[in-house]
């Protein structure tokens, strides 16, 4: 018998602090598996956000920097430009990337910085206790939208992939989900491509992962996965939004 599945080597033995059923754990593992498979652990530098994933540096065996709220792409820009031989990725939530860090995200994409961004979208502020986020769905109940998000007063959700697909500098933008086995496998493919793009010097790649927050959504973890299928994916359709090298590769 041979081992067909085990914990990737790029994850430490630290116990994840995430709530039961939080898909951050799955996404951490996918990133670590990709780092293992590409053999880049020794030269990878991650940039952790502010949010639930703030302690990502405890969980990955590669080097890590922790950035101020929303500034991970700016910090990653500095790290990558000071040593282009390193592989630099950011790991950010929706409160970090789509709210306070929108400017950094859009401009690092516009400059086609050669970095990889992993964007975890669970439509709520998790760490602070479940407040409304820029990505909260219309009508979704949160701590600060107890009657459901009213788009007349607080506006519409920010669709990051659609937004960045119109930025000329962005090289690769894809939205994936991790709510079932098939989607997890597709998510891994997308994350791997985003890292490979950086190794090949192809420029800014962003992978948006539609994720869950069972605790703040007020659901069991299994119900939360169903909710992703029923509510999140129809509003945030999965797929490749931009791939400037697709035509070249097809030839």
């Amino acid at each position, binding site marked *: *018998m*041979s*081992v*067909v*599945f*085990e*914990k*990737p080597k790029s*994850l430490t033995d630290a*116990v*994840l602090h*995430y*709530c*039961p*059923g*939080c*898909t*951050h*754990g*799955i996404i951490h*593992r996918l990133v670590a598996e990709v780092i293992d498979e590409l053999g880049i652990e020794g030269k990878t530098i991650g940039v952790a956000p502010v949010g639930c994933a703030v302690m990502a540096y405890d969980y990955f065996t590669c080097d890590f920097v922790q950035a101020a709220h929303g500034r991970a792409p700016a910090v990653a820009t500095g790290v990558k430009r000071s040593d282009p031989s390193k592989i630099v990725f950011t790991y950010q939530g929706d409160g970090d990337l789509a709210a306070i860090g929108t400017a950094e995200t859009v401009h690092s994409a516009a400059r086609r910085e050669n970095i990889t961004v992993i964007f975890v979208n669970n439509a709520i502020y998790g760490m602070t206790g479940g407040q409304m986020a820029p990505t909260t769905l219309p009508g979704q109940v949160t701590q600060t939208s107890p009657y459901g998000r009213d788009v007349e007063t607080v506006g519409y959700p920010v669709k990051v992939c659609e937004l960045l697909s119109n930025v000329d500098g962005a090289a690769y933008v894809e939205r994936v989900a991790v709510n*079932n*086995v098939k989607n*997890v*496998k597709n998510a891994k493919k997308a994350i791997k491509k985003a890292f490979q793009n950086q190794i090949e010097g192809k420029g800014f790649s962003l992978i948006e992962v539609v994720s869950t927050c*069972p605790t703040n959504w007020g659901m*069991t*973890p*299994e119900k939360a*996965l169903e909710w992703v299928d029923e509510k999140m994916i129809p509003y945030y359709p999965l797929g490749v939004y931009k791939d400037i090298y697709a035509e070249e590769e097809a030839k």
Partner: protein
Amino acid sequence: MAKVTFKTDLCKGCSLCVGACPKGIVKLSETKLNAKGHHPAEVTDPEKCIGCAFCATMCPDCVITVER
């Protein structure tokens, strides 16, 4: 013959593995508690396991190792 091992004390009892198992043989233990106080996941009928690793794919906490 496939073998699934659980690092029981890491399990948070979220049951994502339970829903992922195509054979329906992964269940949360009704009698055991782990060090965290959760009912950990376990395989009820190891003979039926096909080693597809779907449970491990959905586990957020890397609890499960699969051999085949």
